[in-house]
């Protein structure tokens, strides 16, 4: 979820709400899921919980929504037509196909506004645009662009322009190699034969989306009066929506919005789109459904008022159906439930009276849990301390130090080699535990009941998760007999007869290690750990161990 920095004064000014900081913090969280994490004099650091509401990721958007909640007057966004036409090269189909544009005039750009739009542009590209892959946005000084015809087209990697903050021309290819933004986002286009660019009428390159603008047109300052905006990407709806939101932020700051025409010619179909478009969408919702989900018994009038607070317009209410308009900036509304949540938020969650659910059911703990708990109790009765270890471990612990060859399941993207494998046995982790407690008083008698993971082709996830019990005894005189008597006592109490067969196991002393069978099933192993293994774990006292699969008991 994105985090943004917002000027408290700017928020007060734009929202026309003269709230103190605490109150502002409170209403942001209550109505907009905006969690103020820090206030540093004028600077508020805000985490936006809703990853699906990019309209809130700038001070302009927050202010607009707050004005709605507190029933302040909203700005009227009248869009006039500009003369700008953007021609889309049909060869971009498989490169970066979609583009939306807008023109904003009569701006009075303050330093705060400049910071805010740059941040908004970044957040839209990073989070909503999936690191600019799905959407990237650009701002241009309109007065530096010559002519009304702009081309969004393919360019050879050898074509040149001067990127932002550089003082000489570079080829597109070199921009990807040398410009900081080029390096950061090169992976998005570098494997293509052609790169996407915007060109002005003269053929000069304005920018290479979603990487970098030209120095000439891309530099927007406090002196800039008129701007050209664009969004490009791979998802038609998302590109047009992001552009709408971006244009809305400018409009909130007093800019005058002009639309542009985008001419597409994919699949030999000539289509002209107009952007931005601030069109609301009609939606029908049943009062009965609202009541079923919220249980608040709201009447028509109440619902209408709550909806209005959240920015919806109610067009008509017939008996049970409310016909409303979803504002253009709310693309997150996918289903009636999304609107119903807004009604609850407008009502204020903390004013809703909680109701104790009247569902009478019998509580139950799983047999598996009960079985594990019994074993744990027996172990504690024998004076063993219970321990709890991680299930992720390292190759070194699971295999190398145990002198084992059987391969554990590996994680593709570990954060550290210490947690790169799922344990296939608890014993190695216990050895690690002993090593960390070398200086703690002996005897050390510990156990863990926990999961291990074994490859199994028959499972739908190809992995079998087993419950195991691992028991460890370590002191200067610990012997096989001691661990055997633990096994014996356990098996007696869970009423299972078992046999032990000699086995060779690279972690144990030959002749002092056995496989444990219940019936024909092998359920585990016990024995005295080989001194070689003890040395691998830097241990000086003998260790006897037992590990059994609890599921097979």
């Amino acid at each position, binding site marked *: *979820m994105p985090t943004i920095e917002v000027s408290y004064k700017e928020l007060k000014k734009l929202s026309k709400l003269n709230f103190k900081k605490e109150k502002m913090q409170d209403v942001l969280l209550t109505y907009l*899921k905006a*969690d103020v994490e820090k206030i540093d004099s004028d600077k508020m650091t805000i985490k936006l*919980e*809703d*990853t*699906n509401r990019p309209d809130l990721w700038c001070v302009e958007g927050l202010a607009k929504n707050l004005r709605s909640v507190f029933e302040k007057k909203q700005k009227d966004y009248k869009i006039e037509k500009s003369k700008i036409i953007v021609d889309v090269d049909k060869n971009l189909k498989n490169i970066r196909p979609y583009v939306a544009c807008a023109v904003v005039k009569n701006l009075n750009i303050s330093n705060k506004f400049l910071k805010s739009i740059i941040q908004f542009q970044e957040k839209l590209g990073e989070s909503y645009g*999936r690191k600019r892959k799905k959407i990237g946005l650009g701002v241009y000084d309109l007065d530096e662009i010559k002519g009304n015809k702009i081309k969004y087209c393919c360019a050879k990697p050898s074509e040149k322009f001067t990127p932002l903050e550089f003082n000489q021309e570079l080829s597109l290819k070199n921009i990807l190699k040398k410009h900081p933004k080029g390096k950061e986002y090169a992976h998005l286009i570098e494997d293509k034969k052609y790169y996407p660019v915007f060109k002005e009428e003269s053929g000069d390159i304005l920018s290479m989306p979603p990487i970098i603008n030209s120095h000439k047109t891309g530099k927007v300052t406090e002196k800039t009066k008129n701007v050209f905006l664009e969004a490009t990407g791979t*998802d038609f709806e998302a590109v047009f929506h992001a552009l709408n939101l971006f244009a809305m932020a400018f409009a909130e700051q007093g800019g005058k919005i002009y639309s542009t025409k985008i001419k597409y010619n994919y699949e030999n179909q000539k289509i002209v789109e107009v952007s931005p478009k601030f069109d609301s969408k009609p939606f029908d919702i049943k009062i009965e459904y609202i009541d*079923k*989900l*919220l*249980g608040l018994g709201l009447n028509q009038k109440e619902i209408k008022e709550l909806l209005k607070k959240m920015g919806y317009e109610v067009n008509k209410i017939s008996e049970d159906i409310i016909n409303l308009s979803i504002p253009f900036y709310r693309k997150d509304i*996918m*289903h009636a*439930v999304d609107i*119903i*949540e807004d009604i609850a938020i407008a009502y204020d969650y*903390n004013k*809703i009276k*909680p*109701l*104790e*659910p009247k*569902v*009478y059911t*019998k*509580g*139950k*703990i799983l047999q598996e849990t009960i079985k594990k708990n019994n074993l*744990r109790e027996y172990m*504690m*009765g024998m004076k*063993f*301390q*219970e*321990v*709890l*270890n991680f299930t992720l471990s390292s190759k070194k612990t699971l295999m190398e130090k145990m002198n084992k060859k059987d391969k554990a*399941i*590996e*994680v*593709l*993207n570990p*954060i550290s080699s210490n947690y790169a494998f*799922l344990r296939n046995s608890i014993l190695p982790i216990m050895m*690690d535990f002993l090593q*960390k*407690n070398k200086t*703690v*008083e002996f005897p*050390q*008698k*510990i156990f863990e009941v926990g*999961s291990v993971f074994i490859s199994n082709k028959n499972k*739908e*996830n*190809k*992995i079998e*998760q087993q419950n195991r019990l691992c028991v460890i005894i370590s002191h200067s005189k610990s012997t096989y007999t001691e661990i055997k008597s633990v096994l014996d006592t356990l098996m007696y109490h869970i009423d299972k007869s078992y046999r032990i067969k000699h086995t060779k196991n690279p972690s144990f002393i030959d002749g002092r290690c056995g496989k444990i069978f219940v019936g024909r099933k092998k359920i585990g192993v016990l024995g005295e750990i080989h001194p070689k293994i003890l040395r691998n774990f830097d241990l000086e006292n003998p260790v006897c161990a037992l590990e059994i699969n609890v599921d097979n008991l």
Partner: protein
Amino acid sequence: MVDAVDSMHRIEIKILLAFKEIGKLTTEDILIRKTNLDQSKVHRAIEWLREKKILSIREDLKQKIKLTKEGVICLKKGMPEKRFLKAIKSKPLNFSEIKKKANLSNDEFNASIGFLKSEGYIDIENKKIKITKKGLERLSVKWKQDKLLPLLKEWQYIDEIPIHLKEPIPFLIKRNLVEEENVSIRKVSLTDKGEEILPKIKENDYIEVLKPKDILSDVWKKKKFRKYNISAPSGKIHMGKKQPYMKFVDELRNKLASLGFEEMKSSSAELSFFNNDLLFMPQDHPARDIHDIYFIKNKKGNLKKYKNLIEKTRKIHENGWETGSKGWRYPFDEKKSKNVILRSHTTATSIRKLLYKDLKIPGKYFTIDRVYRPDVIDWKHLTEFDQLDGIILGDDMSFRELLGILKMFALEVGNVEKFKFTPGYFPFTEPSVELHVYVKGKGWVEIGGAGIFRPEVTLPLGIDVPVIAWGLGILRLFMTKYNIKDMRKIFSDDLKWLREFRW
């Protein structure tokens, strides 16, 4: 005073009785010999008596000596100097003749010749050695060493050696025939209180450890029990004890069962289909990428069993299917569903439960189980931890009931008086809510998230009643309850901490 006598240990009595024979002042060694007890026992009992102010102790440094290896040889063969003189008593001899006749090693010979020369007992002429008059005189008197050496076979305190034998000691030390050592001697003496008590001490008057034979022999009718020092320090016992966090989980599980919830469980190695797709998380959602979920290497799941469900899920994501939703509007990729991952939330278990045939409606279910996140471990992050998830399904469930459940958790499980709700966001619930509780000294702490499952989640699973779902941050609850600051303690690898933890 009577108590002091009655509570005396058998060994203390033995020691005090020894004082009756020895007198007021003695040493620990003598007491050991007299009582015929182990040094450690005597030592301990003397300490007890000192604490009771019956004895006082003074440490004295003393020197003791004993024959070295060379000394033992001299004891057998006689002093080399004496043997040397004897060999030339009748006539002068050359070096090798003397060595042979007197049976002297090179070292013994060299040491002797120097000494005899400097004392004027011999003369050397023409490579032959001749005894002097003084030497003859020396031979005629008794050598004090002859009487001293046998005494020194064992360690002897110098001050216990008779004065007339002491003279050669410095010479023997110089010749390396005896070794010396300084030891501290514990001198033990009766205090005034001790002298007062002594007459009352009698042997065998008390029953010490009660033994089966004492019970049967009726000895307890005749004898007194020795009174123990019941506050004396005793050893620690390492109990067989639950791991602290596991105990907390056990209690929570019992609590939930008592509130009518049934436990559910599924493997923490999960398919992306269950962890993400069925929860209506779009396939390009940031919470699904490698920075937020562990993927398993070289494994793809088998989803043959779920063919119909995958088709529905595809439609849900692409256009909302029959749910009335418009969907996420992107092309769904079944390959991504097959990724084997370590689940990032236990909501995957709730989803599986909703699929199982044994699901009851109305029903209440919960799970407490392991989840994984690729986070670097530090005091407030773990890469694997537990989550508590629960669902309630029933026709009458609404948002108010969801808040009711959260209120109950805040009061019953969180044990707090103040709580509040804030709107939350999860891709799979709507409305969504977060629960915050007020912790003294800490302020508002978020302890859980909840919501009503979206129709896009429940309808493809064939569930047409509202399902309210909630998750509680049990790590935070545990840490708050026991005032633990470092999250790593939950999986503590510190045996001492585990042994000493108090709940």
